[in-house]
C-alpha cells in the first residue's frame, strides 16, 4: 500500500504546476463565492430546502476536477462545488438548481447538490450516501467493455459515508474488476454532528485501502499543493491500470452541515488546529510566498468571481420556475408508457 501522507511524490506534477495551481485556486474562490451567495439567498428565504457548502473542502474537491480530463467520469457529492466547476460544470448549473430554475439541468425536479450532466460525465447524486460509487464503477466497467482506454472515474464520499454498506460493496467490486476508479474520502471530522470516534474505530480511514487491495493515500486537505499532487498521482495510476485508488483527505468542515446548522458541536480545539486551517487562506499565502500572485491580483480574482456570481444569480432570478401545468409528469422513457399512470 502506498501512503504518501508524509512525503507526497512529484511524479505527476507537470512543469506547469504554477498555472495548474492558480487555475485551481480560482475555482476554489469561485466555489466559495457562489456558496456564500447561495447561503445568503437561503437566509433571505429565497432557496427552498437546504444549502450545503464545501467550505474547507475546496482544495481536495478542486483537485479532482483539475486532475480529471474531459471524457472522464466524475461523481461529486455534497461539498464538491469547486471540483464540479473545475471539471466543467457551468457556474450557473448550481445557481439554477438551488433556485429551482426550469432551465437548470434538473428542471426544478431535483435541487441543490442533486445535479449533474451525465452526457458531460458529471453524475448526479441521489441522497443515499455511498450509492453513487457503484454507479461510477459501473460506468467505468461499461467504458472498458466498449474498449475505451485510459478513462478514469473519480467520486467523493465523506467520513460518515464510509460506514455505509454501499461504500464497501462498491470499493470491493471496483477492486475485483480492477477499475480505474479514484475514491476520495474527505474526512472533515464530522458527519453532520457525529464525530469520527462515533463513526469508525480505525486509526485512519486510509487503513481501509489494504482490505480492498487498493492503493491508498492520505493527504492534507488544507494544502492545495498536496491535494493536487496526491489526487494527481492517484488519477494517473488509475489511468495507467493500477486499479482503484483510495485517497483520504484530512480537513475540517468550516460550516454547519447545512445553512440551518450552527455547528456548535464542533470541538473548538479542532478549529484552531492544523486541520482547521482554511484551505483557501493557506493557498493564498502559498501563492504569495511563491511570488505567483500578489494580494492585489488575488483581490481582482475575487472581485471577478463575485461579478460572475452576481451576474448568474440575477440572470437565474429572472428565469421561469417549472409550471405544473406544463410538466409532463413522466417516469418512463418508453414512449408508449409515457402517459400510462399505472
Amino acid at each position, binding site marked *: 500500500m502506498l501512503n504518501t501522507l508524509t512525503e507526497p511524490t512529484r511524479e505527476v506534477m507537470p512543469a506547469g504546476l504554477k498555472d495548474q495551481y492558480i487555475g485551481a485556486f480560482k475555482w476554489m474562490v469561485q466555489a466559495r463565492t457562489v456558496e456564500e451567495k447561495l447561503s445568503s439567498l437561503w437566509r433571505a428565504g429565497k432557496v*427552498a430546502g437546504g444549502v450545503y457548502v464545501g467550505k474547507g473542502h475546496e482544495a481536495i474537491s478542486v483537485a479532482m476536477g483539475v486532475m480529471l480530463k474531459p471524457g472522464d467520469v466524475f461523481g461529486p457529492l455534497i461539498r464538491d462545488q469547486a471540483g464540479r466547476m473545475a471539471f466543467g460544470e457551468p457556474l450557473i448549473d448550481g445557481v439554477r438548481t438551488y433556485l*429551482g430554475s426550469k432551465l437548470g439541468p434538473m428542471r*426544478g*425536479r431535483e435541487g441543490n447538490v442533486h445535479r449533474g450532466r451525465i452526457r458531460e460525465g458529471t453524475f448526479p447524486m441521489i441522497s*443515499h450516501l455511498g450509492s453513487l460509487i457503484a454507479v461510477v464503477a459501473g460506468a467505468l466497467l461499461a467504458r472498458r467493455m466498449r474498449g475505451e482506454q485510459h478513462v478514469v472515474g473519480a467520486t467523493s464520499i465523506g467520513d460518515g459515508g464510509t460506514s*455505509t454498506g454501499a461504500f464497501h460493496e462498491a470499493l470491493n467490486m471496483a477492486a475485483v474488476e480492477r477499475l480505474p476508479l479514484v475514491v476520495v474520502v474527505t474526512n472533515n471530522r464530522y*458527519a453532520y454532528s457525529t464525530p469520527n470516534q462515533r463513526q469508525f474505530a480505525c486509526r485512519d480511514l486510509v487503513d481501509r485501502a489494504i482490505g480492498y487491495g487498493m492503493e491508498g493515500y492520505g493527504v492534507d486537505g488544507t494544502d492545495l499543493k498536496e491535494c493536487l499532487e496526491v489526487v494527481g498521482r492517484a488519477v494517473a495510476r488509475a489511468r495507467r491500470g493500477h486499479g482503484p485508488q483510495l485517497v483520504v483527505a484530512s480537513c475540517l468542515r468550516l460550516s454547519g452541515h447545512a445553512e440551518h446548522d450552527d455547528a456548535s458541536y464542533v470541538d473548538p480545539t479542532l478549529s484552531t488546529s492544523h486541520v482547521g486551517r482554511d484551505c483557501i487562506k493557506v493557498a493564498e499565502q502559498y501563492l504569495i510566498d511563491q511570488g505567483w500572485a500578489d494580494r492585489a491580483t488575488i483581490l481582482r480574482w475575487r472581485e471577478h468571481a463575485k461579478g460572475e456570481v452576481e451576474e448568474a444569480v440575477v440572470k437565474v432570478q429572472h428565469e421561469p420556475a417549472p*409550471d405544473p401545468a406544463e*410538466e409532463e409528469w413522466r417516469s418512463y422513457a418508453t414512449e408508449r408508457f409515457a402517459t400510462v399512470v399505472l
Partner: protein
Amino acid sequence: MSITYLEAIREAQSVALRDDPRVYLYGQDIGPFGGAFKATKDLAALYPGRVLDSPISEDAMVGSAVGAAMEGMRPVVEMQFADFSSVGFNQIVNQAATLYWRTGVPCPITIRLPAGGNPGAGPFHSQMLEGIYSHFPGLIVMTPATVEDAYSMLLEAIALDDPVIYCEHKYLYNRLKADALSTSNLPTGQARVARPGRDVTVVAYSAMVHEALAAAEEMAREGVELEVVDLRAVKPLDFDTVLASVARTGRMICVAESWPWGGTNAEVIARVASEGFTLLDAPPVRINSFDTPIPYHPKLWAAHRPSSKAICVEARKLMEW
C-alpha cells in the same frame, strides 16, 4: 401549555426512557445533537448511555436493534429520513418482521420514519413508505395524524411486542399544535371519525387527514358533508369504522400522499368493494400523489401531492354521480 406534533414525539420517547429501563434510542445524530429534527432534544443528557449516535449504517442499526430486542430490550431506531430506510430494508422486512413467526420470540422494536413531503425536500427526503412496509407480514405500521396520536401511538409502539414502523409526518412537525397530551387514547387497530358527515366518507391518514378536514370545511359551505375517517394505523387496518361510515354515506374518497400503484388506498378500496359490496352508491375514488418521484420545486411539489382542492373536486363529482 401548547405542544407540537414534534414535541409530542420527543415527549413520548422521554416518557418511555423514564418508565422502562429496556428502552434505548439509536440513530444518526440523535445523541448530544438531539437529532436532525430535534426529536430527541436533551434526551442523551437526561438518560446517559441510552440515546446513542449511530454510524451511517441503517442495515446495522436495524439489525442490532433486532438483536437487542431478542435480549429483551425495546430499541427505538430513528431513521434520519424515512427514505433512508431503503438501505435498512432487508433487516426490517426479513429479520425483524419474521422473527416472532420463525422463533416465537417477540421483536419489540420501533422504527421511526420521518416521512412525507415538504416544499423543497425533493425525491429522497419526502417519501411515504407505509404501503411498502404494510405488505410484509409481521410489521405494524402507524401513521399518526394528530399531536395526541403522535404521542400515545409512539408510546404504544414502544410497548407493543411487535416491530412497529412509526411513520411521523415531517409536514406536521411544527405546524400541528395541541393544548395537552392525552394520557388515554384509542389503541392501534381502531380508526377514528375525525369529523362526522352525512354525504361522503373521506378515508385518510397522516398529513392527508388535514387536507380532508380542510376539504370538509369548504364543502360544508356548499352544503355537502364529508365524513373524515382517520385510519391512524394502516396495518392493521380498522375496517369496521370505514365500513360503518360508508354504510352511512354510500360514497367514498380515499386520500393518500403515497404513490398510486397499490398502497393503502388500493387496500381500502379493495376491501370495501369486497366486504361492503352493496354499500357504495357511487364508484370509490382514489386520490394519490402522481406516479413520479416527488419533485423538489415547491410549485411542482404542491401539484404532485393531493390537496384539499382535489378532494373537493372529487366530492362534487361524487355528489352529482
